[in-house]
Each structure stands twice: as C-alpha cells, then as structure tokens.
C-alpha cells in the first residue's frame, strides 16, 4: 500500500534540492539563510519521525529563528525575461494550458480510479490519504508533461520551483506552525476557558439571542483559533446542544451545518488561517500581507448575518 510517507520523501527531496540550489545562488546575498531554512524543511519531511518530539521542537525554533531575524533572502535563478515569455506564449499558444489541466485530471483519476483499486486484500493507496497521494502523483506527472511538451531544461522544475518558493518564503511554513500551536492550545485547555467565558456572560434567554451567540461565537472563536474545527466542539457543547437543540427544540442538522459555516465566515477574516489568507498575498506578490483578508471581510460579515437569519428561520 502506498502511504503518505512516500509523498513526504518526494517533498523532502524537492526541498533538499531547493536548499542545495539556494546555497549555490550567488545573486542572493542571504543564500545560506535560504539554504538552512529549506534544508530544515527537507530534514523534517525526510526524517521527522526519527528526530523525536524535542528534536522536532528544536527544528521549529531553528525555522522561526531564521525567518524571524531576517536571514531569509530571495533567490534569483536564471529564468526567462518578460519579452521572451511573450514570444514563447505566442509560439506555444493554447498548449501552455495542458500541464495546468493535467494536474486536476490526474487528481480526479486518482480519486475515482486509483482510490478504490485493490491488489488482493490491500488497497493500492492508503484510503485516508488518497487525495494527497493523488495530488503528489499529479504534480509529478504534470511537471513531466510541462518539461517535455514545452521543451524546458531538465533543471527548470527545481529552479523555477525554488523561485516561487522564495517568493512565498516563511509564509509557506506558517499553516503547519499554526496547526501545531492549536495542539498546544488544546493541551493547555484554552478552548474550554474561552467557551466558558462566552456561555457564562452572554444572554441566551430568547431563541434569537441564542442563535446570535452561537453564530457570532463560532465566527469569533474561529478567528482566535484560526480554524472552525477547533471552535465547533466547544461552542456546540456550550451553546447549541443545551440551548438551541434541547431547550428550544432546534433541528440538530440545521443548527450544526449553519453553525460550522458561520465558523467559516470567521476563517475568511483571520490571519491565523494562514494557508488561505497569508500565503496567497505572498504568492501574488502583494505588498500588504492582509490584502486578501481585507477583500474578504465585506463578504464575510453580510454572510454571517445571512447565516443567523437562515438558522433562525430553518431550524425551528
């Protein structure tokens, strides 16, 4: 059975290559900072299970130190100039879209065909990780298609990957760091304290007030924790189950479904949901780190209000 471990090895080798190419990049004044940073990421992916918990903790301190003290620069691999790109885009035409379309097609193939496939009693892919394994396979195939079809140098996937990786920089590791912070919060019982605060001091004597507390609480708590999944058990145990469902007789499916989506409105408004809100500005080279959040807030707030109305109307 193919498990996620194979994917980690693949990603680890990619980051190891980024580290080596970074170290050799004389155009980057901080090349050794980049080499160390991507090297640590490679180490985590290749040998994370053998480092021990404390070893991984020290590795994280290393990553934060390199990024936090400004030791990370931006590599400048040889790439095509804007004029060359315009010429190439005319020469290749619509062919250029083929690698980008190969990626989703292979993902779909993986999910629909490879995932159910069994060799004897064993699954070909670990069923729990099939989507991520398919994505890795798709990335590999699409890269091959791009290099062959567009006749690009063999080293270009690694050099161009490094160019984009340096564009994103430390932000790329933030989602994983925040997930780890969530685990520390859970260990210390932060969720329970916030949940108790909300449920003790807020009025919930009418149906409308209870709906508002639940939906706003889900959004607010999600903003603090960066993730609606962390907010859901706390708020549902504190507000939805005792008050909305048991006391006012609300339909649990409606209450929970819309409650979770109220949490997603919070996700749109918090920098702690880094992979959605902070990585894209880095990827799109936007000067304001919070520009995507700013574009989302005016959708999130009316939507949160709409969710409260929907829950009030549909659940009872």
């Amino acid at each position: 059975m193919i498990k996620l471990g194979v994917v980690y090895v693949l990603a680890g080798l990619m980051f190891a290559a980024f580290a080596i190419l970074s170290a050799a990049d004389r155009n980057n004044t901080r090349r050794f900072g980049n080499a160390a940073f991507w090297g640590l990421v490679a180490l985590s992916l290749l040998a994370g299970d053998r480092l021990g918990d404390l070893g991984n903790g020290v590795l994280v301190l290393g990553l934060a130190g390199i990024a936090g003290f400004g030791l990370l620069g931006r590599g400048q691999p040889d790439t095509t100039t804007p004029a060359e790109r315009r010429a190439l885009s005319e020469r290749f035409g619509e062919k250029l879209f083929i690698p980008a379309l190969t990626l989703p097609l292979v993902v779909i193939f993986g999910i629909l065909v490879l995932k159910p496939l069994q060799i004897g009693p064993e699954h070909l892919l670990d069923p729990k990780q099939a989507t991520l394994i398919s994505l890795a396979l798709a990335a590999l195939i699409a890269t091959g298609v791009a290099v062959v079809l567009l006749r690009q140098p063999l080293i270009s996937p690694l050099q161009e990957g490094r160019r984009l990786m340096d564009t994103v920089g430390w932000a790329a590791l933030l989602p994983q760091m925040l997930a780890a912070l969530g685990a520390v919060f859970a260990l210390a019982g932060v969720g329970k304290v916030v949940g108790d605060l909300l449920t003790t001091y807020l009025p919930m004597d009418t149906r409308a007030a209870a709906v508002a507390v639940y939906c706003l609480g889900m959004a607010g708590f999600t903003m603090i924790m960066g993730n609606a999944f962390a907010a859901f058990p706390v708020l549902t145990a504190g507000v939805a189950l005792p008050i909305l469902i048991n006391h006012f007789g609300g339909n649990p499916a409606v209450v929970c479904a819309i409650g979770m989506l109220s949490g997603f409105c919070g996700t749109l408004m918090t920098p702690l949901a880094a992979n959605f809100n902070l990585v894209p500005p880095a990827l799109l080279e936007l000067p304001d780190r919070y520009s995507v959040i700013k574009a989302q807030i005016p959708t999130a707030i009316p939507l949160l209000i709409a969710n409260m109305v929907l829950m009030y109307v549909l659940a009872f």
Partner: protein
Amino acid sequence: MLILLGVAVVVIGFAARFNPLLVVVAAALATGWAAGLPPLAVLAAFGKAFNENRYVSVTLLVLPMVGVVERAGLQERARALMLRFKGVSVGPLLIAYMAFRQITSALGLTSIAGQTQSIRPIIAPMAEAAVETHTGALAEPTRHRVRAFAAATDNIGYFFGEDVFVAIGSILLMVSFLATSGITIDPIHLSVWAIPSALAAFAIHAVRLLLFDRRLRREARP
C-alpha cells in the same frame, strides 16, 4: 484566565506585524508557561504537533510545475486569452470561476483548483487583463486589489462549496461529535442544510464582484 496569554500574544503579535513564525513560537511558549507546563515539555508538544501536521505542506509539491509553465509564458497566454474575449469583464469572469470552484468542491473535488495552481498562473492574470481591456494600463494599487479579489474568490468558492459534499472533514467531525453527545445524524442531512448558506455566499460575493467591476470602470473614466 492567565491561560489566554497565548491568545493575547497572537493578537498583539499579528497586529504589530512581527514575523508570524516568531509570534507563533512565542505564543506556544507563553501558553505553556501560563498552564504551568515545563518549557521543554511545551517545546516537545509543539515539535510533535508540527511533525504530525506535515501533510499541510504537501500541496507545495505543485510549485515546480507552476514555475515551469510560467517560465514558458503561461501568465502571458492567460492575459492574451482575455484580450480576445473583450466582452468579458472582471466581475463576470470571477463569478464564473467562483461557480466552477464551488460546484467542483461540492462534488468533493476540492484539490483540482487552488491559489497556487489556478489563481497565480491563470486566474489572476486573466482578471488583470479583463480590467485592462476596459480601462487601459493598471496602476499598481489597482492591480493589487484585483489580485486580492481573485484570491478571495477562490477561498469563498472553496469554503462554501466543500460542506455540501458528504465525505468532507468538517461533516465527519460534526457527525462524530453529535454521536458522542447521543444524537445520531445522517451526514447527508448536514450537507443538504449547507446548501442555503452556500447559495447566500455565492449571491453576496457575486454582488460584490459586480460592484467592484463597476467601481473600477468609474475610476477609469476621467
């Protein structure tokens, strides 16, 4: 109450725009200290969780492919495509993308599109070109606003599509949580009741995109 120190560190650190990686480590150490845990135990817990969450970073594997097609001129091609369809302006373009993203997510195909593989190489350049055909060359702040809107549209389509799919993580979390509280629920009911909010999200964001489109045209007129 002291336990919330870590939350305070996060809020202040992000607001003051310190490096977020440092803020997160500081918040973890502060939370552990407030909870009376020894620092090394906190560091070990943090390291363990970091290692267990490596799958979050697997999506970065698509970067080499995106880089190669950019090197060969994909962004320029995506732009040129929009110059041929002069009638399509940025509002309807992004609304169409949102519909695609929301519908495919609702079918469980959440990873066929995304910020790295769709927005940066294709959708953002198309959106910029769609504005340029109507207003001429873009000022940098306007270009940045268009890109931010493209990224936001991907998130909104994804978030409010995925919960309509039965076998997504959040639905499974709700089912198992309700089961431990003695309420048995069929996942299909949760996904059906996600539809009204999904439609509301589409409608609200579509209106915003159309207003954004109109504002850009008005700004362009001297």
